[in-house]
């Protein structure tokens, strides 16, 4: 193994989140939510928030490190990092960047955070109100092709055409998230179970996505603190050790006007290869997986591209039985995720992956050694994370 790796060198030592709200429901500002989550993560780790000296986030988080550090009273900030790219593709990427900073010795305690109060700012996926559009959107927006749901629908539709399946897989992914959320009191959809009939009967948003194939819109914040495995030994929590983190984007995936050469993809093909290479394990070793659901079809393609099943087997492999936390072959999205816990832009998937390693999930998988996160299918770039006990 090359010395140039983050494998086994970094651990997650603190996690926290605010109360999760429906969009517009947060009683405090997005900045306050973010601070609350970071302070909570520091308390969870057993460090003083002022010891945090590195910050990493993604998706153009509005709560920038200089303001956060001033509010927290951090003595020094030695790493201030933003993972480029839209959507939730940067969740594990921000973790990867935090790991790099720790291994490089830039910082001692790095917080990965995401604050999001869509009720206080704009909604994701809202169509343009501009009268004219230039550049690449000139070939999409005039046709009413503006939202992520519409764009991703065409990637999934093409996958379904090429592989003659996928509707049952999408349904299983959605039902699984809602079932797991019923065990999780943090979940916005806790107490609102979803039946197969209600899934089938829900309105179309954009084919092949019905209402419950789509993530929610929420307000809240979450934070994760990482440090070196050496420092982790002296802290309060059982460390969740990073054995792989990867990020990237395949050849010309961001080509404008839907001209990516490989179109029916979640964009994980190259990233997954690097992930397994660094981790030194294979899909069969994974005990539990959190896979980012902007839309269920993206989860389906992610699981295929990470090698959990073949592209022609999705409806056979992706069942509620196989995704169950208690005895499923691949326990999936055990907190309820973006569909049913909170659209915390995928950072809630990372806190859940840590809980699975600690043994504190509300849908705890037995004897978890390997806990995995896939962040942001179908966007550019995407990223992955694997933790071990």
């Amino acid at each position, binding site marked *: 193994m090359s010395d140039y790796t983050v494998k086994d060198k970094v651990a997650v030592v603190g996690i926290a989140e605010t109360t999760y709200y429906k969009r517009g429901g947060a009683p405090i500002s997005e900045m306050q939510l973010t601070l609350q989550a970071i302070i909570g993560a520091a308390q969870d780790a057993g460090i003083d928030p002022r010891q945090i000296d590195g910050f990493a986030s993604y998706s153009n988080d509005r709560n920038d490190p200089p303001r956060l550090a001033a509010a927290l009273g951090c003595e020094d900030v030695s790493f201030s990092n933003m993972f480029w790219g839209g959507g939730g593709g940067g969740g594990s990427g921000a973790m990867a960047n935090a790991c790099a900073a720790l291994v490089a010795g830039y910082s001692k305690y790095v917080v990965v955070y995401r604050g999001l109060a869509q009720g206080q700012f704009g909604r994701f*996926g*809202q*169509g*343009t*109100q*501009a*009268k*004219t*559009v*230039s*550049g*690449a*959107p*000139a*070939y*999409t*927006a*005039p*046709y*009413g*092709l*503006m*939202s992520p*749901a*519409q764009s991703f*629908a*065409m*990637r999934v*539709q*093409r996958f379904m*055409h090429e592989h003659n399946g996928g509707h049952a897989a999408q349904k299983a992914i959605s039902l699984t998230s809602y079932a797991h959320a019923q065990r999780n009191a943090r979940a916005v959809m806790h107490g609102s179970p979803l039946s197969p009939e209600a899934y089938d009967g829900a*309105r*179309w*948003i*954009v*084919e*092949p996505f019905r209402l419950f194939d789509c993530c929610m819109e929420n307000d809240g914040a979450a934070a994760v603190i990482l440090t070196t495995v050496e420092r982790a030994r002296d802290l309060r929590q059982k460390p969740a050790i990073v054995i792989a983190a990867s990020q990237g984007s395949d050849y010309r995936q961001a080509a*404008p*006007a*839907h*001209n990516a050469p490989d*179109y*029916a993809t979640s964009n994980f093909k190259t990233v997954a290869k690097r992930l397994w290479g660094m981790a030194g394990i294979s899909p069969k070793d994974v005990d539990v997986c959190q896979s980012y659901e902007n839309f269920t079809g993206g989860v389906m393609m992610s699981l295929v591209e990470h090698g959990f099943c073949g592209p022609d087997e999705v409806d056979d492999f992706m069942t509620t039985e196989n995704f169950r936390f208690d005895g499923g072959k691949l326990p999936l999205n055990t907190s309820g995720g973006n569909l049913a816990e909170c659209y915390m832009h995928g950072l809630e998937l990372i806190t859940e992956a840590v809980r699975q390693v600690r043994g504190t999930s509300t849908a705890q998988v037995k004897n978890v050694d390997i806990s995995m996160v896939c962040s942001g299918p179908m966007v550019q770039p995407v990223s992955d994370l694997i933790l071990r006990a």
Partner: protein
Amino acid sequence: MPGELSPKTPYAKPLPDPNPVTQPFWDAAKEHRLRLQRSRKTGQFIHYPRAVSPFGANDELAWEDVSGRGHVWSYTVARRATAPQFESDVPYVIAIVELEEGPHLTANIIDCDPDTVRVGLPVEAAFVDVTPEITLVQFRPRSAPAE
């Protein structure tokens, strides 16, 4: 579907703003022709328009008319509008059309029942004059089977 030009109601949907690279595409559309860039070196057509050939520095791109024939390569039926200007259009079909010449274009499939659209549906270009300056390239089903 994008509305026909009406002198009384200003066109409310987003309009393309041509730039020096894309202007020939929109000029041709106004004349109800579909014109794309073609590599002199490889003979391949490309879309979207580019200032520099993707096939190397020793190449030139020339604008040429194409057939306008193709088939639906992927599509979706928008059942909800993401902007208010499209609310009267739902459900509408958004598609990627693969032209016989190879390139993929995004457009609506018009003049059809959205529920009849499938991957592989043969289509042909349809030109919709939405303002005096701008014509959108759309596609409609054609009766002849796909090649």
